[in-house]
């Protein structure tokens, strides 16, 4: 495989954000994925979201497992630390990193093979613990690196070049809802207009945010019989809402029809403006979200948008009652009770 160094040069008139960074400062290495891969669009959306949110790149930590999706953290945010961990076990590495330093923004980038099979247990526990992270599943329904075997999210009846999938699919969005995720969304890699605001909302969300992004595999799963192809998702996309993300600093102006806009204020003051495409859909009702998902799935549709949000989420640090300072900065003065305390311990055993 080739490794090409990306040129640092950029056009002098590129727009800079509040920190003085241009979009290019959020880029990473050159992608080695196939041309047209949905995953590259997701990387581009993440770059866009971080640029627009004025995030300092070095304040982000990127964690991934193994697979095509898990290679992508290398292709964005070159000034962030990143770690390509064990297949399906990004969640426990991310949980550990988050516990060690709560001050960073955590991106957990995974795929359907990584999260829905070998890593299903890990996925479940990091969601139910409320780890403050953006967990992105780049979902293409196949194992691309090993030549296109069906993954556990492939729909029953999906066809590959050589086989028909006869197993029931695992819907990670449904699972995330059951497991207590405080932010659950689904999007499509080909819909940047929907994906970028969702990512921005997820990044500012102080809890476990899960986004399932249907991301067609151009090599192995973009055929007419696939339910994770560009054409299928475009034709069967049932968006429950359209999201506008407004930072606490920005002026809020409404340009939607009254009665179709729902406003959600997050803990950091950011405002999510949801243009409701289904007026009776309530993104604060976990039960309704689950019912809706199931209903639309049976109708052969892919539900996208912000499906559930808890505007007052709790995270793992709150549950564990940890101190405000990152744990990796504590020293012996903070942590070691010393020989006096040990003498008491010794005494208690006599």
């Amino acid at each position, binding site marked *: 495989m080739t490794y090409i160094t990306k040129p640092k040069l950029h056009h002098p008139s590129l727009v800079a954000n509040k920190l003085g960074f241009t979009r290019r400062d959020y880029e990473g290495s050159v992608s080695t994925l196939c041309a047209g891969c949905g995953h590259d669009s997701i990387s581009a959306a993440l770059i866009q979201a971080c640029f627009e949110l004025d995030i300092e790149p070095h*304040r982000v930590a990127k964690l991934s497992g193994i697979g095509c999706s898990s290679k992508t953290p290398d292709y964005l945010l070159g000034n962030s630390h990143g770690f390509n961990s064990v297949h399906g076990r990004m969640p426990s590495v991310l949980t550990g990193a988050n516990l060690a330093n709560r001050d960073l923004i955590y991106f957990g980038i995974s795929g359907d093979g990584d999260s829905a099979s070998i890593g299903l247990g890990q996925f479940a526990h990091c969601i139910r613990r409320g780890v403050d992270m953006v967990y992105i599943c780049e979902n293409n329904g196949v194992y691309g690196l090993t030549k296109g075997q069906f993954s556990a999210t492939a729909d029953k009846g999906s066809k590959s070049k050589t086989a028909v999938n006869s197993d029931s699919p695992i819907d990670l969005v449904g699972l995330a809802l059951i497991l207590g995720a405080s932010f659950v969304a689904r999007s499509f890699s080909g819909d940047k207009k929907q994906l970028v605001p969702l990512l921005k909302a997820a990044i500012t969300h102080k809890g476990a945010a899960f986004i399932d992004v249907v991301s067609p595999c151009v090599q192995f799963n973009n055929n007419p019989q696939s339910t994770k192809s560009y054409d299928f998702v475009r034709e069967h996309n049932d968006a429950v809402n359209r999201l506008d993300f407004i930072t606490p600093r920005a002026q809020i102006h409404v340009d939607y029809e009254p009665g179709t806009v729902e406003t959600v204020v997050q803990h950091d003051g950011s405002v999510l403006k949801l243009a409701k495409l289904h007026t009776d859909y309530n993104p604060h009702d976990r039960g309704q979200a689950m019912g809706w998902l199931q209903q639309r799935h049976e109708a052969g549709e892919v539900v996208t948008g912000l499906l559930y949000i808890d505007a007052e989420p709790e995270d793992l640090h709150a549950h564990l009652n940890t101190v405000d300072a990152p744990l990796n900065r504590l020293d012996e003065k903070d942590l070691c009770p010393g020989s006096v305390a040990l003498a008491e311990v010794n005494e208690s055993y006599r």
Partner: protein
Amino acid sequence: MQEFFGLAYFAEIPAVIFDIQRGGPSTGMPTRTQQSDILLCAYASHGDTKHVLLFPKGPHEAFQFSAQSFDLAERLQTPVFVMLDLDIGMNDWLCEPLTWDDQHTYDRGKIMTAEALEASTTFGRYLDVDGDAIPFRTLPGTHPSKGAYFTRGTSRDRYAKYSEEGAVYVDNMQRLLRKFETAKTLVPGPVRRAAQKPTSWGAIYYGSSTPAMDEALAALEAQDLHLDTLRVRAFPFSEEVSAFIHEHEQVFLVEQNRDAQLKTLLVNECGIDPARFISVLHYDGTPITARFITGAIAERMTLATRKQAAE
């Protein structure tokens, strides 16, 4: 779990693992004691790995080694296994009071601060700067433009840049071996005890076998059977360990497992002729006793003495 040990070894992530060794699998025997994870931990993971192991003799030393294990893990940037067993981990022991030096400071190892990054011209996550084969590392979020890297287990060069080149892989593997040599100088050394009378017999033991061994040695001395002993306290083995073995014609190796796992490790890592060792193995799940050790060693030594006399 094995994959994680390997990943931590290759990506050079400090970690401490407490292995309370026991019987098993299934339920039942896991409530009994053994020293049967020595090889599992020494070479944990796929790929070529070697891990640091510590063998405390009881609760007092377990406490000391626990604190030391964190310093070692961060200094060496590798997993460190504290090899306890169920006997130490769950049974009541009579031991010396636990001690703590209030002057002790945590060793965080080679970490580049923002100031150090600012002053340096090059940072390479896997670069051996000062010859001990331990690279410098940075913590995420330290500096806006220096010291960040994207890493993985293998397939990257000294600067953590992606590479599948064979020579790059070999270069890294050789450095990891050199780092293990550095580890030899940092881990707790063995404890040697000379017999009351000069002898060509030696005995090696470790971990929770120690109290039974102490008692057995006294009983053997009472029968005029004398052995020099060495209590191994860590892997990698320091030079003193192989020197001790070479100084004795026959060395008893007392272990609480079926397959003489520490013997395998010694034979493999120190290049020693297996015929030098006489294994004394106890592995029924109960803690090893002085009676068992005394019986096994006395029988063998007496037999050899009779044989010599006959010749």
